[in-house]
């Protein structure tokens, strides 16, 4: 198993007082899609900017495919691509020209350059609008153009900072579909920051939650959801009356957190609904309680997020983030 990103004890202090990162440790496997979740101001973007060699950490180490991001930054830049949160294409030239300029900046050899650009445009579904000015593009198209730019050098890792911020659901879906097919074709590792829990849930292999500059949770979406240990089994009963001793029996099971009954609704909160259901069902049947309907509610990533990083998000993200989102909306992002 190759390790794509390794981070040890990373600290970043801004202007001597703001601790944006406070000892971050992280490992990302090659070929994974890795989602970094965190409330505003938790250090997501700072971490990504250090990993992409934009600036140096105050202390600690980080490496990309074994290359130290501080000492061997030039080599790191050859294997990574990065799509910043803000718009990163020139709007007063065409989409094709943007790719051409970036291809030249990236030093792509001139033979086959046109082919690479055409492939990138097709890959992102932009071939029909390639010669239009970027000004005329929609937010989703601009995002896809940026992805196309990032793919020109066939990176081993693609860093995406809030890749779908401000896009409508359809545009988000298209961006992700294109991204997934690119990832499959070139076996690229993808590392992305997001606020959208559903994206992390659907598209990522592993998730880390960062809060106040520290990693608070790490695992697959399922592991994270299970870690909450709060799943609800809801029974709709045919009869309103349930004997007190039945409730007592259910409550006494060690995997049951608590039981609530109101009218014909019996809610049993357990650690793992899938294994608990047959046991509870058995009790109900033995005691002659007839059940009309059963449903299970498993925690979503939102619940996970709120549990581990909920406190700070209530304080809001500060004016900078708001300004960023607003300014993007001005540029046709939203």
């Amino acid at each position, binding site marked *: 198993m190759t390790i794509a990103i390794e981070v040890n004890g990373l600290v970043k202090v801004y202007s001597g007082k703001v601790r944006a990162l406070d000892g971050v440790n992280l490992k990302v496997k090659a070929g994974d899609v890795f989602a970094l979740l965190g409330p505003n101001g938790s250090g997501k973007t700072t971490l990504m900017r250090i990993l992409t060699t934009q600036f140096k950490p105050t202390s600690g180490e980080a490496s990309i495919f074994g290359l130290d991001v501080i000492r061997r930054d030039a080599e790191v830049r050859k294997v990574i691509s990065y799509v910043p949160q*803000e718009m990163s294409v020139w709007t007063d030239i065409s989409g094709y020209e943007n790719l051409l300029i970036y291809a030249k900046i990236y030093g792509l050899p001139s033979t086959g350059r046109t082919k690479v650009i055409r492939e990138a445009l097709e890959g992102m579904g932009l071939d029909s609008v390639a010669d239009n000015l970027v000004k005329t593009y929609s937010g989703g198209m601009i995002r896809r153009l940026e992805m196309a730019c990032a793919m020109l050098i066939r990176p081993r890792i693609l860093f995406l900072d809030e890749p779908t911020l401000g896009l409508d659901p359809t545009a988000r879906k298209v961006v992700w579909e294109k991204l997934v097919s690119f990832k499959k074709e070139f076996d690229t590792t993808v590392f992305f920051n997001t606020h959208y829990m559903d994206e992390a849930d659907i598209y990522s292999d592993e998730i880390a939650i960062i809060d106040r500059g520290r990693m608070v949770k790490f695992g697959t979406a399922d592991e994270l959801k299970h870690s909450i240990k709060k799943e609800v089994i809801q029974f709709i009963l045919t009869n309103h009356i349930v004997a007190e001793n039945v409730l007592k029996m259910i409550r006494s099971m060690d995997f049951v957190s608590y039981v609530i009954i109101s009218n014909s609704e019996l809610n049993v909160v357990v650690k793992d609904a899938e294994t608990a259901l047959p046991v509870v069902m058995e009790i109900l049947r033995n005691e002659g309680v007839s059940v009309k309907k059963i449903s299970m509610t498993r925690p979503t990533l939102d619940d996970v997020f709120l549990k581990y990083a909920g406190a700070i998000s209530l304080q809001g993200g500060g004016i900078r983030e708001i300004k960023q989102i607003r300014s993007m909306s001005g540029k046709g992002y939203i």
Partner: protein
Amino acid sequence: MFAMIELELRRLKHDRTEIYTRAIQPILWLAVYGTVMSHVKAIPTDGIPYLDYITPGVLLQSTIFVSVFYGLTIVWERETGILKKLLVAPASRYATVIGRSVASGVRAIFQVLIIIPVALLIGVDFIFNPLYFLTAILIIFLVSGGFAAISILIASLMKTRERFMGIGQAIIMPLFFVSNSLYPIKLMPTVLQYFAYFNPLTYAVDAVRGLLISGDIRNLLPDIAAIVIFDVAMFAVASISFSKIIE
């Protein structure tokens, strides 16, 4: 580096309004100020008509205007993600800084190509020597590059557009007035003369005036030397300050 020049050319291809609007101010200097002042005849210009005398200065002022405000592009690119993306590109950061500056020189050249025909129309008498002309263009190019580097330096200090606009104006006009653009340095108070001798614009105006108007190129080499020293110093400072823009 050349990619940056190509970028500028492609942008200009799509939208030329900026070249035209930026040409208005220098044309006013020549057509209004120059024409009026040439009737006064109070400024000793070594026998050169006053309009001809100020043409090189106006030319340079308008080109460094383009260069100094090039930093604005950097500020804008910092607000968007372009700057970040350039930093992560597998290319040298110094090449990025230099490429940016040189690209602004290209924009400046377009400025020259618009002002010169207008000056000809008004009746400025140029020396028609292709070699002199090319040398003058080269000098303008070098000076604009240096000023673009200054503007990168300012951009690294002033991180918002509004502040940048103010400081940009506050730099160009004094440089223009405290130089030999509009009048010989000899006419200035002694203190200002010292400033004028530290002003790279003075040397550039002197060289371009020699090449395009008076034909007196005795000072050409020291002028170019001064400009090169200025460029090297500014590029060095800009490269260092560039890392500050990022954070």
